[in-house]
């Protein structure tokens, strides 16, 4: 079972918010994902569909791609929510990512926009990388910490 103890009740958007990745009491083998804001804050607009998507991916079985893939780690789920929260914030005009699983047990967030492609890979160990490709053939990549401003600007104008 994925270790969950380190993930419960971590800060998400602000100190009043939390992400819970936990066992489902009614279905012990199934992991649930819940994004919650406390203190009466409204949940971000992307919370429900992202919860549903992450819950689907974190419950994939080992070898889910027939090429020996590992299970998606709970840490990757936590990081994915952090990244999405940071990039989308509360701006409903920003497009939601498509989320896919990676062979190593991580997640990949993808935006395929009219003038550019944005892909963010979240390794199960906690590294987060961004890749940008323009329709003019340009490519740029690096740690998300160095590229977050650029990615955010692209999403803001999508």
């Amino acid at each position, binding site marked *: 079972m994925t270790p969950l103890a380190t993930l419960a009740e971590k800060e998400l958007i602000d100190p009043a918010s939390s992400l819970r990745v936990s066992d489902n009491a009614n279905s012990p083998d199934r992991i649930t994902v819940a994004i919650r804001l406390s203190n009466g804050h409204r949940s971000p607009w992307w919370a429900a569909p992202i919860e549903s998507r992450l819950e689907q991916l974190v419950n994939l079985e080992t070898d*889910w*791609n027939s090429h020996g893939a590992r299970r998606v780690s709970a840490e990757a789920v936590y990081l994915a929510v952090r990244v999405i929260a940071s990039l989308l914030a509360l701006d409903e005009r920003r497009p939601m990512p498509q989320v*896919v*699983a990676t062979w190593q047990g991580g997640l990949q967030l993808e935006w395929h926009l009219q003038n550019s492609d944005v892909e963010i890979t979240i390794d199960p160990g906690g*590294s987060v990388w961004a890749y940008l490709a323009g329709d003019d053939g340009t490519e740029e990549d690096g740690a998300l910490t160095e590229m977050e401003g650029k990615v955010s600007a692209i999403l803001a104008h999508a």
Partner: protein
Amino acid sequence: MSQPAGAQRVPDDDTIQSDDLIYRRVRDDGKVNVVIDKNGNRSASSAAFEDDADGMSVFLHSVLLAATLEPGSIVDGFDGYVLARLTVQLVRSLGLGIVRDPDPPDAKPMPCNVAHCLLKLAPMSITQNHRLRQKLARASTLIPG
């Protein structure tokens, strides 16, 4: 072979013709490794082209034909999977090699295993690997199993 100048040499079987086709099995149900591109079409995610230590599993079209098998045989018994199709020429142009690997260990016994091959990559950084995977995804054609 046709690897880029200066690239580290990778194993490559020159009995495999560059105009041959290869297929990679991709998990489609729930869009686990399939995305919608900017034109609204379904395509393989770059995440579908991650390799493990041995290489990236693919199946060679000419060997399937010689064994009187259809490409669809690659996903027999794999509900919710599709195939990503590429040319050998394309993968070689990106610096990858291809070697035959019939009857791979730990694989489900299947008639199509006779056509199993591995794409071989030179060691590269995470970002270089992502660029490579993106090119493979963009160049691939998704076809039903």
